[in-house]
Protein backbone atom coordinates (compact mmCIF):
# COMPACT_ATOMS: atom_id res chain seq x y z
CA UNK A 1 0.00 0.00 0.00
CA UNK A 2 1.11 3.55 -0.70
CA UNK A 3 1.08 6.13 2.10
CA UNK A 4 1.06 9.81 1.12
CA UNK A 5 1.63 12.74 3.45
CA UNK A 6 0.95 16.46 3.13
CA UNK A 7 1.84 19.74 4.82
CA UNK A 8 3.26 19.43 8.37
CA UNK A 9 2.66 15.66 8.40
CA UNK A 10 4.97 15.36 5.35
CA UNK A 11 7.57 17.66 6.93
CA UNK A 12 7.66 15.77 10.26
CA UNK A 13 7.94 12.36 8.58
CA UNK A 14 10.53 13.56 6.09
CA UNK A 15 9.08 12.23 2.84
CA UNK A 16 5.96 12.76 0.78
CA UNK A 17 5.14 9.08 0.20
CA UNK A 18 6.26 5.52 0.93
CA UNK A 19 5.26 1.96 0.08
CA UNK A 20 4.45 -0.27 3.06
CA UNK A 21 3.33 -3.84 3.68
CA UNK A 22 0.80 -3.68 6.47
CA UNK A 23 0.83 -6.53 8.99
CA UNK A 24 -2.42 -8.49 9.34
CA UNK A 25 -3.03 -6.81 12.71
CA UNK A 26 -3.54 -3.44 10.96
CA UNK A 27 -7.17 -3.25 9.81
CA UNK A 28 -8.18 0.40 10.22
CA UNK A 29 -6.63 3.84 9.82
CA UNK A 30 -6.36 4.10 13.63
CA UNK A 31 -4.43 0.78 13.67
CA UNK A 32 -2.14 2.13 10.95
CA UNK A 33 -1.38 5.31 12.93
CA UNK A 34 -0.39 3.20 15.94
CA UNK A 35 1.76 0.93 13.78
CA UNK A 36 3.53 3.89 12.13
CA UNK A 37 4.06 5.85 15.35
CA UNK A 38 6.59 3.34 16.70
CA UNK A 39 8.75 3.74 13.59
CA UNK A 40 10.35 6.97 14.75
CA UNK A 41 10.18 10.41 16.29
CA UNK A 42 9.03 12.03 13.02
CA UNK A 43 5.91 9.85 12.93
CA UNK A 44 5.18 10.48 16.61
CA UNK A 45 5.47 14.25 16.02
CA UNK A 46 3.27 14.06 12.92
CA UNK A 47 0.57 12.07 14.75
CA UNK A 48 0.88 13.85 18.12
CA UNK A 49 -2.69 15.15 17.87
CA UNK A 50 -4.54 12.43 15.92
CA UNK A 51 -7.95 14.07 16.46
CA UNK A 52 -6.75 16.91 14.23
CA UNK A 53 -5.67 14.68 11.32
CA UNK A 54 -7.71 13.98 8.20
CA UNK A 55 -7.52 10.91 5.96
CA UNK A 56 -8.35 9.91 2.41
CA UNK A 57 -8.63 6.29 1.32
CA UNK A 58 -8.06 6.02 -2.44
CA UNK A 59 -8.73 9.78 -2.69
CA UNK A 60 -12.02 9.66 -0.75
CA UNK A 61 -12.25 11.27 2.69
CA UNK A 62 -12.49 8.68 5.48
CA UNK A 63 -12.43 8.58 9.27
CA UNK A 64 -10.09 6.67 11.59
CA UNK A 65 -12.42 3.68 11.84
CA UNK A 66 -12.25 3.06 8.06
CA UNK A 67 -10.98 -0.37 7.02
CA UNK A 68 -7.86 -0.07 4.86
CA UNK A 69 -7.08 -3.75 4.18
CA UNK A 70 -8.11 -3.34 0.50
CA UNK A 71 -6.84 0.24 0.15
CA UNK A 72 -4.27 1.16 -2.51
CA UNK A 73 -3.43 4.66 -1.25
CA UNK A 74 -3.91 6.15 2.22
CA UNK A 75 -3.35 9.91 2.54
CA UNK A 76 -2.71 11.48 5.96
CA UNK A 77 -2.89 15.26 6.31
CA UNK A 78 -3.87 18.18 8.57
CA UNK A 79 -7.17 20.08 8.16
CA UNK A 80 -7.27 21.78 4.77
CA UNK A 81 -6.65 25.52 4.40
CA UNK A 82 -7.16 26.40 0.73
CA UNK A 83 -9.05 29.29 -0.82
Amino acid at each position, binding site marked *: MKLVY*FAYVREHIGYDSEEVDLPATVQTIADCLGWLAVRGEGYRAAFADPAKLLFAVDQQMADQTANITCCRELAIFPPV*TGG
Partner: protein
Amino acid sequence: MLPGTGDFSPGDGRMIRIHLPQKALDLAGEMAAINALGSGAVASFTGTARADDHAGQTVTAIELEHYPAMTSAALQALAETAMQRWPLAACCIIHRTGIIPVGDAIVLVAAASSHRVAALESCSFLIDRLKTDAPFWKKEYYDNGSARWVEAKAADTTRAQDWNIRA
Protein backbone atom coordinates in the same frame (compact mmCIF):
# COMPACT_ATOMS: atom_id res chain seq x y z
CA MET B 1 -3.12 19.35 -22.97
CA LEU B 2 -3.73 22.01 -20.34
CA PRO B 3 -6.93 23.99 -20.80
CA GLY B 4 -6.65 27.61 -21.80
CA THR B 5 -8.32 30.56 -20.12
CA GLY B 6 -12.08 30.23 -19.99
CA ASP B 7 -12.40 26.73 -21.47
CA PHE B 8 -15.58 25.24 -20.05
CA SER B 9 -16.30 21.51 -20.27
CA PRO B 10 -19.92 20.91 -21.22
CA GLY B 11 -21.63 17.91 -19.63
CA ASP B 12 -25.41 17.35 -19.47
CA GLY B 13 -25.82 20.96 -20.60
CA ARG B 14 -23.79 22.14 -17.58
CA MET B 15 -20.63 24.13 -18.13
CA ILE B 16 -17.94 23.47 -15.53
CA ARG B 17 -14.38 24.73 -15.52
CA ILE B 18 -11.82 23.46 -12.98
CA HIS B 19 -8.23 24.65 -13.36
CA LEU B 20 -5.15 24.49 -11.11
CA PRO B 21 -2.49 26.77 -12.63
CA GLN B 22 0.96 27.27 -11.08
CA LYS B 23 1.16 30.81 -12.43
CA ALA B 24 -0.76 34.08 -12.06
CA LEU B 25 -4.50 33.78 -12.71
CA ASP B 26 -5.92 35.59 -15.76
CA LEU B 27 -8.84 37.07 -13.82
CA ALA B 28 -10.03 39.32 -16.66
CA GLY B 29 -9.90 36.47 -19.18
CA GLU B 30 -11.77 34.08 -16.90
CA MET B 31 -14.50 36.62 -16.16
CA ALA B 32 -14.80 37.58 -19.84
CA ALA B 33 -15.30 33.90 -20.71
CA ILE B 34 -18.06 33.31 -18.15
CA ASN B 35 -19.77 36.61 -19.00
CA ALA B 36 -19.65 35.67 -22.69
CA LEU B 37 -21.95 32.71 -21.98
CA GLY B 38 -24.76 35.30 -21.80
CA SER B 39 -26.51 33.88 -18.76
CA GLY B 40 -27.57 37.26 -17.43
CA ALA B 41 -26.24 37.00 -13.86
CA VAL B 42 -22.62 36.25 -12.94
CA ALA B 43 -21.25 36.35 -9.37
CA SER B 44 -17.61 35.85 -8.47
CA PHE B 45 -15.23 35.70 -5.53
CA THR B 46 -11.49 36.33 -5.73
CA GLY B 47 -9.20 35.45 -2.81
CA THR B 48 -5.84 37.25 -2.73
CA ALA B 49 -2.63 36.65 -0.76
CA ARG B 50 -2.50 39.27 2.03
CA ALA B 51 0.54 40.86 3.69
CA ASP B 52 -0.71 39.74 7.13
CA ASP B 53 1.33 40.24 10.30
CA HIS B 54 2.03 37.29 12.58
CA ALA B 55 4.07 37.65 15.80
CA GLY B 56 5.70 40.83 14.46
CA GLN B 57 6.60 39.34 11.07
CA THR B 58 4.98 40.25 7.76
CA VAL B 59 3.89 37.70 5.16
CA THR B 60 5.79 38.09 1.87
CA ALA B 61 4.46 35.03 0.03
CA ILE B 62 2.33 31.97 0.57
CA GLU B 63 2.73 28.45 -0.73
CA LEU B 64 -0.24 26.30 -1.73
CA GLU B 65 0.40 22.58 -1.46
CA HIS B 66 -2.28 20.20 -2.72
CA TYR B 67 -3.04 16.52 -3.35
CA PRO B 68 -2.88 16.27 -7.16
CA ALA B 69 -4.56 12.84 -7.33
CA MET B 70 -7.59 14.15 -5.41
CA THR B 71 -7.90 17.92 -5.93
CA SER B 72 -9.53 18.10 -9.36
CA ALA B 73 -12.08 15.40 -8.49
CA ALA B 74 -12.94 17.15 -5.20
CA LEU B 75 -13.48 20.47 -7.01
CA GLN B 76 -15.49 18.79 -9.78
CA ALA B 77 -17.73 17.16 -7.14
CA LEU B 78 -18.17 20.55 -5.44
CA ALA B 79 -19.15 22.21 -8.74
CA GLU B 80 -21.63 19.41 -9.51
CA THR B 81 -23.20 19.77 -6.05
CA ALA B 82 -23.72 23.50 -6.72
CA MET B 83 -25.19 22.73 -10.15
CA GLN B 84 -27.72 20.35 -8.56
CA ARG B 85 -28.66 22.83 -5.84
CA TRP B 86 -29.05 26.02 -7.93
CA PRO B 87 -30.18 26.61 -11.55
CA LEU B 88 -26.72 27.45 -12.88
CA ALA B 89 -25.61 27.74 -16.49
CA ALA B 90 -21.94 27.51 -15.54
CA CYS B 91 -19.49 27.62 -12.71
CA CYS B 92 -15.74 27.80 -12.54
CA ILE B 93 -13.18 27.17 -9.82
CA ILE B 94 -9.63 28.30 -10.57
CA HIS B 95 -7.09 27.71 -7.76
CA ARG B 96 -3.42 28.61 -8.03
CA THR B 97 -0.83 26.25 -6.48
CA GLY B 98 2.86 26.64 -5.62
CA ILE B 99 4.47 29.90 -4.44
CA ILE B 100 2.14 32.92 -4.58
CA PRO B 101 3.52 36.42 -3.89
CA VAL B 102 1.50 38.80 -1.71
CA GLY B 103 -1.01 40.72 -3.82
CA ASP B 104 -1.59 37.91 -6.32
CA ALA B 105 -4.88 36.03 -6.56
CA ILE B 106 -5.05 32.56 -4.98
CA VAL B 107 -8.53 31.52 -6.05
CA LEU B 108 -11.34 32.61 -8.36
CA VAL B 109 -14.83 31.14 -8.02
CA ALA B 110 -17.60 32.27 -10.37
CA ALA B 111 -21.15 31.17 -11.08
CA ALA B 112 -23.49 32.10 -13.92
CA SER B 113 -27.27 31.86 -13.86
CA SER B 114 -30.30 33.65 -15.24
CA HIS B 115 -31.10 34.67 -11.64
CA ARG B 116 -28.90 36.78 -9.36
CA VAL B 117 -29.86 34.93 -6.17
CA ALA B 118 -28.69 31.60 -7.62
CA ALA B 119 -25.43 33.17 -8.83
CA LEU B 120 -24.70 34.93 -5.51
CA GLU B 121 -25.67 32.05 -3.22
CA SER B 122 -23.87 29.37 -5.22
CA CYS B 123 -20.72 31.48 -5.41
CA SER B 124 -20.75 31.81 -1.61
CA PHE B 125 -21.41 28.06 -1.26
CA LEU B 126 -18.52 27.18 -3.60
CA ILE B 127 -15.89 29.18 -1.71
CA ASP B 128 -17.23 28.15 1.74
CA ARG B 129 -17.09 24.45 0.85
CA LEU B 130 -13.79 24.73 -1.03
CA LYS B 131 -12.20 25.94 2.20
CA THR B 132 -13.19 22.78 4.09
CA ASP B 133 -13.52 20.06 1.41
CA ALA B 134 -10.66 20.52 -1.07
CA PRO B 135 -7.17 19.18 -0.25
CA PHE B 136 -5.10 22.39 -0.21
CA TRP B 137 -2.67 23.52 2.51
CA LYS B 138 -1.37 27.05 2.90
CA LYS B 139 2.07 27.96 4.25
CA GLU B 140 3.00 31.57 5.04
CA TYR B 141 6.54 32.87 4.44
CA TYR B 142 7.67 35.90 6.48
CA ASP B 143 10.10 38.76 5.91
CA ASN B 144 12.58 37.32 8.46
CA GLY B 145 12.89 34.07 6.48
CA SER B 146 10.65 31.96 8.75
CA ALA B 147 7.56 30.07 7.62
CA ARG B 148 4.40 28.67 9.25
CA TRP B 149 1.55 26.37 8.20
CA VAL B 150 -1.77 28.21 8.39
CA GLU B 151 -4.22 26.57 10.82
CA ALA B 152 -7.79 25.79 9.81
CA LYS B 153 -10.35 28.18 11.32
CA ALA B 154 -13.36 26.89 13.26
CA ALA B 155 -15.46 29.70 11.75
CA ASP B 156 -14.76 28.35 8.24
CA THR B 157 -15.99 24.90 9.30
CA THR B 158 -19.14 26.44 10.81
CA ARG B 159 -19.87 28.41 7.61
CA ALA B 160 -19.35 25.33 5.43
CA GLN B 161 -21.62 23.22 7.67
CA ASP B 162 -24.33 25.92 7.69
CA TRP B 163 -25.03 25.05 4.03
CA ASN B 164 -26.25 21.62 5.24
CA ILE B 165 -29.21 23.18 7.04
CA ARG B 166 -29.98 26.20 4.80
CA ALA B 167 -33.06 25.88 2.62
